[in-house]
């Protein structure tokens, strides 16, 4: 049976394979040619990623979310999952083109830690609520990551419209109004999931505490603020898109801090 890491390498290659033809198709101005390849690559990458996480779980005897490489892979898997869930709102293949590079980077980072995928012992009893708390937080981070990707798409389409650059990419990107709403939905979803995760932490006296929890509250505060700003129309959609795109740096860096 292939190892979890081998499947992860294959998954990374599948995501890479989806990006290259799509970019080439865009450059040629023949987007349709890359569409099937893009979707197939995303599906293959996700299937391999899922199998890899399953095997890794078997290897460490628990949900693999205790080391930074494992966390990066789990967040990448959540991003891919959300991508398939929300993809129909957009043009799936195009969101894939923007999402796949992020997944490749996250997998790459996970591999960059020497011995990062070594087995680790199960510390004490496995508490289901702790696992749920951690999983919800990571899926929330994935929602913030997709908000970041959608923010980049918004900023691109907005620039093309302002500068009258009506070409290949313009026709493939969704309407800016739809993108603005998608950013809003992704940020809200992330806040709800993170709130649920933090809500669970109240039930885990002493188990989930310390700097990890403080950082999670910090991320929650940041995105709750972004949600309020969006909801109250305080900032323009462009400023919101910048916030969603750049804001993800905070939860991304916090992954290092919490591990």
């Amino acid at each position, binding site marked *: 049976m292939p190892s979890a890491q081998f499947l992860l390498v294959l998954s990374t290659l599948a995501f890479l394979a989806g990006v290259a033809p799509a970019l080439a198709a865009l450059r040629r101005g*023949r987007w*349709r040619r890359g569409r099937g390849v893009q979707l197939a690559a995303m599906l293959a990458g996700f299937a391999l990623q899922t199998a890899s996480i399953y095997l890794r779980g078997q290897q460490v005897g628990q949900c693999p979310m205790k080391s930074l490489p494992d966390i990066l892979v789990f967040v990448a898997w959540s991003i891919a999952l959300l991508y398939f869930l929300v993809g129909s709102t957009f043009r799936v293949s195009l969101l894939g083109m923007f999402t796949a590079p992020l997944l490749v980077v996250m997998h790459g980072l996970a591999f960059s830690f020497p011995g990062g995928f070594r087995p680790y012992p199960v510390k004490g009893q496995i508490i289901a609520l702790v696992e749920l708390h951690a999983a919800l937080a990571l899926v929330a981070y994935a929602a913030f990551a997709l908000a970041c990707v959608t923010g980049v798409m918004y900023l691109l389409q907005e620039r093309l*419209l302002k500068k009258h650059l*009506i070409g290949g990419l*313009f*026709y493939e990107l969704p*309407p800016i*109004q739809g993108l603005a709403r998608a950013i809003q939905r992704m940020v809200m979803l992330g806040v709800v999931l993170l709130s649920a995760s933090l809500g669970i932490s109240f039930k885990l006296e002493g188990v989930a505490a310390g700097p990890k929890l403080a950082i999670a509250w910090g991320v929650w505060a940041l995105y709750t603020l972004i949600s309020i700003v969006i909801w109250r129309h305080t900032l323009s*959609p*462009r400023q919101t898109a910048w916030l969603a795109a750049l804001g993800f740096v905070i939860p991304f860096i916090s992954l290092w801090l919490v591990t």
Partner: protein
Amino acid sequence: MPQATEKSGRLVCLGLNYRTTPVEVREKVAFPRPSVPAALREVAALPGFDESVVLSTCNRVELYAVHHLDDCAQAHATLRDYLVRRFDLATGQAEALVTYGLDSAEAARHLFRVVSGLDSMVLGETEIFGQVKDAYKAALETGVTGRALNKLFQHAFSTGKKVRNQTSIQRGSTSVGSVAVDLAEKIHDLAECRVMLVGAGEMSRTCAQSLLSRGAKSIIVSNRNYDRAVELAAEMRGSAIKFDAWEASMHEVDVIISSTSAPHFVIHPEQIRQVMRKRRWEPLLIIDIAVPRDVDPRVNEIEGVYLYDIDALQAIADEGRRERQRQLAACEQIIEQQLEKFGLAASRE
């Protein structure tokens, strides 16, 4: 009968289109939809003929048939005579009827080009695909197609799809109206899109109609001549407002098409800033078709506002046409490959 035509029948196409024949003549030889089944039977019953498809659109009339005549020129003449008789053309009109006759591989190549939109007035347009499909369906239902035409048209549809999927021949806009629609679609959900027409010029009317035909929600018309505004609004199932009231309604619409004859700007950045505050950052598309321009170009600097004047729209449409022209060689190559693949390149020569 179908087998016999496959073995010995020869494909022929006799036609006329917007390039060969002026509209005054084309309209005389057009087949109204209800008359098509009878025409199909008449062509298939001509001496030496046994399959037919009649394609009649506003830009072309083409008869595709399979015949057993020894001479192709005779087949062309028979079909041409049929048109003259069928439409009772006088001698002068018959002489003015310029047609083209194509045989075997040339006829197949022509059909493939037609289906792919390469022979259309607007290069790459998609409507023709459906029109050819309808023409073939009518022939199939009338029972005048055999194996030869069935195979030919199936191959033509598959080639048409290939050309559209593998090239960008249908991408981009080629007219000012379609550019306006594309822009509106990339900013708003068209079904929720409210349009305001300031001034009632022909071009602005075309843009508004394009938006409405693609599903824009509603239209408001404002013009110095209120009666004209009411007339235009009625034509487009919208509402008219007095010319001094359009500024107050600006925040309620998503697209403004301006084409007044004012010699100075009528829409200024200060106005639009106020409008955007009321719109709570909902984006606004402004299409300025007037010359001299109606909208101060600084309006485009306001966040959430996208301003396009007539030159910008025309430049996009021109680029769309050039892009389609650039795709032409790739399309022709696909057609040649498909002719070869289906054994139509030489087998019928």
